[in-house]
């Protein structure tokens, strides 16, 4: 199964979404460091990437620029006024605070993609 890659600089969010996705039978790989995630993505095909927009060293959209085309990309943003509208490569956005159900609904199609 291809992994769901979850990137957020908040460790507690990484931890809990790993659990939630695992409970749904998905494979989740989480990163608090976007550079580590980019390195992982160079070697691994992901079913989807969920990425926070506001991170200390880099924004979510800058992460998007550096991952292979064709990988479904979901942007999570808490900043008012940040919008991904007009960026064709963003598959979907979630605005913080969001409910876990919203995230699950959105990535449902990618939970069980075979390798």
């Amino acid at each position, binding site marked *: 199964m291809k992994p769901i890659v979850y990137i957020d*600089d908040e460790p507690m969010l990484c931890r809990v979404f790993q659990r939630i996705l695992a409970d749904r039978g998905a494979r989740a790989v989480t990163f608090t460091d976007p550079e580590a995630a980019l390195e992982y993505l160079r070697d691994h095909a992901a079913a989807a990437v969920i990425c926070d927009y506001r991170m200390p060293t880099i924004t979510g959209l800058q992460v998007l620029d550096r991952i292979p085309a064709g990988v479904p990309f979901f942007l999570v943003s808490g900043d008012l006024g940040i919008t991904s509208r007009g960026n064709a490569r963003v598959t979907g956005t979630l605005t913080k605070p969001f*409910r*876990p159900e919203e995230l699950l609904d959105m990535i449902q199609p990618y939970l069980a993609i075979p390798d």
Partner: protein
Amino acid sequence: MGNQPSLVAELLRTLPLAAAMFDREMRYLAHNDRWLVVHGEPAGASLIGRSHYDVFPDLPTKAHVVHRRCVAEGVDETGVDVYLRADGRREHLRWRVSPWRDAAGAVGGLAIYVENIGDHLRTEARLAERESLIRDLFEHSPFGLNLCRMDGLWLESNPAFLDIIGYSRTEADGGLTYWQLTPRKYDADEATQLEQLRTQRRYGPYEKEFIRKDGRLVPVRLNGFLVSRDGEDYIWSLIEDLTAQRELEAKLEAERVTAIQTSKLATVGEMAASFAHEINNPLGVIDAFAFTLTDAIASGDQEYLDEAVRSIRVAVARAGKIVRGLGKFARHPDSDPLEDVAIETVIDDALDLCQARIRTHGVDLAIRVTTAGRVRGHGIELSQVIVNLLNNAFDAARESKAKWIRLTAGDGAGDTIEVAVEDSGAGISPEVEASMYRPFFTTKPVGTGTGLGLSISRVIVERHRGTIVLDRDMPDTCFRMILPRLP
């Protein structure tokens, strides 16, 4: 007659008055030079043998009457007459007409003495005029004026002073003392002023209050000096009513507090996006962990349950800190009293608001506090200055390559505390420096800055008797807030 005439002539010459002797028909028997001067006759002229009335045909009838009466009744008469001279001068002549008697005791004629008292009168008039000027000044002065004895008994008060204290002149002068109207809390200050009066013979400017007749306290400024009268010292005081000035100051202070509060709320508004971010993350953590609890309980995964509960509590604490910081920062100025506050607390309160935002955006924030010093002030206002400086540093640093901010606090020269905020930003041009303390001046994009940060910061720092400067001696952009340190 022997040498009598020459004796008479000598007597006349040495008299400090104009004098002349006449026979009963008012013919001149003798006169001195002063007589000629007073009457405007050429010096050295002789009137002997001539009739007084021929010499002075314009002499008023009144004079004729006096002369006749004095000769007939043998009595003296005196008086003052005003003569208008040909050149327009007015002369005041005091005269005395005395009959002289021969050896048999009969009236032989008259002696007349004349003194020009014009100068004397003019001096008296000038004195009276000065006296009246000074009296007018005293009575109509907008400043209170008061003369008191060394024991504080009031002797003379002008209407302005009576207005200030609310007593009538009869109540105050000779009835009230300075000390009856002075609140006890000024005892120490009074001692200082008295000492100054003793050593320098003057006191003030001295600001205090008087207790008015209606019991109200009236703020005043006093200046005064010692005067001596008949070997005794008295105190003259000039008293200004400061009520209007105090009211104006209170109004300006209220306006400053309002401006500071408005700017604080504007700052909070500008930072709203980052506060949302800092609260959303903990909320998301809480919600997501709660979402997993049912399954974790069902499966009896105790280890995970412990972690979930711990994480939820950490998240609540983190969000609570932001909300508390915001509440503290934005609350009403009344709950930011004047107190002794540690500079470290001031900095911590500012960091509660700014730190997460700065670090979330990848700007390195180094903090070094090397003083445990305290300042007298409004803690939240001073935090606001640091927040403003950090926000400016943040906006500059995030655009730079190096992306760092350094906040240092330490003891400065001469009992001060210095808080410096440095950043890796592009720096401040001299043009910007010239305008940056002006209200509404901003270099930030439209809608992101009110342009009030530095102007309000300066108002706040100056209210705390400190200064805020751009330190050009530092290689990077460095703002320095310098405050008086409490001992």
